[in-house]
């Protein structure tokens, strides 16, 4: 799917609306759904990885110095990471 969904004509729909490119869900920006964004406080984070484990969309990954952050292309802002964080290092901040 190289075209945005809104530009696809019915003539371009594959037979039976099948997904013919495996893994093309990667191109889908679920980050568009987000109204709240997780923000990490490095002073509180103990790098335990609970946020990474609980993220239902596998949108959290490890970055430099073993801290974690969300990939905002996919993060839907569900807030589970903030709810599960043991030290309260993640805060949900409203998107502007």
């Amino acid at each position, binding site marked *: 799917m190289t075209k945005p*969904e809104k530009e696809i*004509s*019915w003539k371009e*729909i*594959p*037979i*039976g*609306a099948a*997904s013919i490119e*495996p893994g093309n869900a990667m191109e889908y920006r679920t980050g568009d759904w987000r109204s709240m964004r997780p923000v990490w406080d490095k002073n509180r984070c103990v790098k335990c990885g609970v946020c990474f484990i609980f993220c239902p969309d596998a949108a959290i990954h490890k970055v430099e110095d073993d801290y974690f952050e969300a990939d905002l292309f996919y993060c839907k802002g569900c807030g589970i990471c903030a709810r599960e964080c043991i030290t309260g290092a993640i805060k949900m901040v409203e998107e502007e």
Partner: protein
Amino acid sequence: MGKRVGMEVSIGAAEAVKLARAECIAAYPITPQTHIVEHLSELVNNGELDAEFIPVESEHSAMSVCCGCSAVGARTFTCTSSQGMALMNEILFIVPAMRLPIVMILANRSLSSPLSIWNDHSDIMSIRDTGWIQLFAENGQEVVDHVLFAFKVAENPNVLLPVMINMDGFILSHVIEPIELPDQDVVDKFLPPYNPVQRLHPDHPITMGAFAIPDLFTETKKAQEEAIKSSFPYIIKAWDELGNTIGRYYNPIEKYKSEGKKILFITMGSFGETVMTAIDMMEEKGIDVGLIRIRLWRPFPEKEFLDAIKDADILIVIDRAITFGGMAGPVTTEIRSVLYHEENMPAVVGFICGLAGRDVTPKDYERMVEIAKEKVKKGKEKEYEIYGVRE
């Protein structure tokens, strides 16, 4: 050519599935379709048909299994009736949307309640809008021929849609008729092995029946609608090829003594045979009536229908199901919709009759002609009638 042999139509239907070399069959027995499933399971069990026969616990599973079989590229058959069909309802919509060329015989039977095992069209009319190509057979030979035809149409890469053959329960399914089964080599030439355009295979992974967001759903449905509309010429072509192969030619709209007639009956399914007898009887009495049989119900052959009725002043439409709270029976409503905007629109008189196997005799059809004329004279043709109901 094969020889004509007296056999039960259900057995003939199962033998036709064998001739078509179906590879997967998943079905659950239900009256009046049972003999088809039973005979198919025997054919597979005794090695006459090299197919997977998958016994299931319900019709919902039967059609789900058929989906899987067809999705991996197997020639797939199933059959059901009434309550069983109702139980597979959810999957009936999914099959054409995923463009799976499954063939199904629906042995038409009324829907509960009250419970009835007998024939009418309330089952098929409830699934009219599922997206299947829908045909009506008038006799046993037509059922057999159309099993072969159905696979030919369904599997055409330009079509790729499921085909449903409607056959009146008991009136056809349990009747012993002289039936000609074509020879296997003739069928093999007409119906080569299924060659799927796309299928589930580990070498080329695809996902079928995934979800569509609102931005895409309308486009998927438009594509599906265009698929069934554009299947029409391939349906006609397949009938031509079938005719050239077995010598029996079929049309989307069949006519009987209809040329120039001012009054025409419109029927679907086995009732057409009785109406033909009624027309012959009326002819002797000087009552001029013709018959139009709708063989292809979806996609509806609009042009062919309008051409067939162009000389008529009165159309007497026989409905075998009720549209509760609607304007008339489902076929009558359809015909009125087809006629709207036509010049010289004939009067359309709808009769609902033959519910749950109640007999409708040639005499009844003669009576309907009288009632129809009377209604048109009084300008009351819009009011449909449940024929023969006791007041």
